[in-house]
């Protein structure tokens, strides 16, 4: 990448961050709720992008991990725990359960693994609904408090949005670090060619379990923030359709691209809101938009950008070769 391109990208990134901080300051309560939801869902989708997009392990259970995180956070904060401590428990619980769910992936892959994770998703939903002593059953848990962070109350929508945005920033940095570390390369080797990876000393078992555990832990982070965002949780939001929504965010945004989940969550959370003016038609339009996009670019939105950049690189390279050749001929 040229130095110019890099500065351009950093500048664009700073503009987006500034916009995310400044513009919502004038938003109403509902707008801020939707944006906070975008940040939370992006975190969950980043987790799935790690498991599925980078490590190639299909999971239809990410929504269940959001549920695990949300219940852990809701139960503990309503018992007086501070949110950071509750969030820690959310992360740890979903990490451990994610690790265990990774074991089937050591034996089955692809569609079969999808079914195993789907079964887990159903199991988690049943636990949320039936174990009333812990989860409140169908009545759920209400009056979930919003935290004080370093003495700042986040009861109002705007401070809570900043809490979500800050968490998204921290998670993004951590995931960025992870995927550019040798671990990220090992995750991609699981996706690309596990047989070859083994013969190069990659402990595919351990990395597969880690891919599941870390991806699920990020689902737990998202859940831990979701509970104080809505301040009321019941089992319904964490059923299979959330897992499918998160899967769609990853695929539509661009599976295996760092920024894929940001775009995918934007489309899944914001686009329905923008299409509201069409009233009864908005869900239909939304569905058609997704179908058209995936026909046009099966690799998602960032797949389009990636192809465009690759084309341009090829053109530049062949132009350079042509110039070099003509120079060589002139010299001769």
């Amino acid at each position: 990448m040229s130095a110019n391109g890099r500065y351009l990208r950093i500048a664009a990134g700073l503009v987006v961050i500034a916009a995310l901080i400044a513009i919502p300051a004038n938003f109403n309560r509902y707008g801020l709720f939707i944006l906070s939801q975008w940040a939370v869902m992006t975190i969950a989708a980043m987790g799935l992008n790690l498991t599925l997009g980078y490590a190639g392990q299909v999971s239809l259970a990410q929504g269940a991990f959001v549920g695990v995180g949300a219940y852990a956070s809701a139960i503990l904060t309503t018992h007086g725990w501070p949110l950071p401590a509750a969030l820690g428990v959310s992360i740890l619980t979903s990490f451990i359960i994610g690790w265990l769910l990774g074991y089937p992936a050591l034996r089955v892959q692809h569609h079969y693994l999808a079914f195993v994770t789907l079964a887990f998703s159903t199991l988690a939903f049943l636990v949320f609904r039936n174990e009333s002593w812990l989860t409140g059953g169908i009545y759920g848990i209400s009056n979930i408090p919003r935290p004080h962070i370093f003495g700042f109350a986040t009861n109002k929508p705007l401070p809570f949005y900043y809490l979500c945005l800050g968490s998204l920033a921290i998670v993004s940095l951590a995931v960025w670090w992870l995927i550019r570390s040798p671990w990220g390369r090992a995750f991609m080797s699981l996706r690309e060619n596990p047989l070859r990876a083994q013969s190069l000393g990659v402990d595919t078992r351990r990395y597969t379990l880690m891919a599941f555990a870390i991806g699920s832990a990020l689902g737990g982070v998202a859940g831990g923030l979701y509970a104080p965002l809505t301040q009321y949780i019941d089992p319904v939001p964490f059923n299979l359709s959330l897992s499918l929504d998160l899967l769609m965010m990853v695929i539509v945004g661009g599976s295996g691209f760092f920024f894929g989940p940001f775009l995918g969550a934007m489309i899944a959370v914001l686009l329905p809101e923008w299409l509201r003016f069409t009233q009864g038609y908005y869900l239909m339009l939304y569905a058609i938009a997704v179908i058209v996009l995936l026909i046009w670019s099966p690799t998602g939105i960032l797949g389009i950008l990636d192809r465009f950049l690759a084309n341009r690189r090829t053109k530049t390279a062949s132009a350079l070769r042509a110039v070099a050749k003509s120079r060589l001929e002139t010299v001769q």
Partner: protein
Amino acid sequence: MSAVLEVTNIKKSFGGITAVSGVSFDVHEGEILGLIGPNGCGKSTLFNCILGQLTPTTGEVRLDGRTVTGMRPSELNRLGVSRTFQLLQVFPKLSVRENLILAGQEHQGSMTSRLFGRSDAGLTGAANQMIGFFKLEHLAGEQAGGLSYGQQKLLDAAMAFMGGPRLVLLDEPAGGVNPSMLADLKDRLVAINREKNATFVVIEHNMEFVMSLCSRVMVMAEGRVLAMGRPDEVRANPAVIDAYLGH
């Protein structure tokens, strides 16, 4: 000469079919051993048993005198046993350089140091050196999936050498590689064998390649060892001519 690899009485059956039926041989330190035989004679199955990709039904594999039978391929690789594949086995979406860094990164440090350490695990230099050695400089930043068949074959071999292995098992390295590139590949293999003191076992159907590269040749037929010896001895062996080489 000490033996790097000792294979004792390896048998491997799949249901009623016996693919390898009692094979024993030693590989000496620093040698290049050829392994030839008709298709379906059990060469690749034998490789997979040695490398832990298959568990042999009976028998023992020893590496430097230590029993390693049934060890996982990744563990075995970290002990210094590496391989190349008959069919292309690279990481298509990663660049050539990333392929090579990946091939070396698990041979150093721990899981923790790989998580918090440098992105390239300090291997960019070594990867570039390997790229230069296999004359792939102009392709270093390209996605491996975009390379030609022969170039991917070279990359596959280069990856096998990244971890500094003691023993490399090459499964048909010459298959599908054009003649000029083949001469290059042979040069590279000989150079690594001498300079890095790496021991090779090579499965190959290209007789000219095997006979000129290897110090000893083992011939297999129907899951058994038919002959073992210097290339000229093997070539003159009537049983071998009958079963494989033809008249």
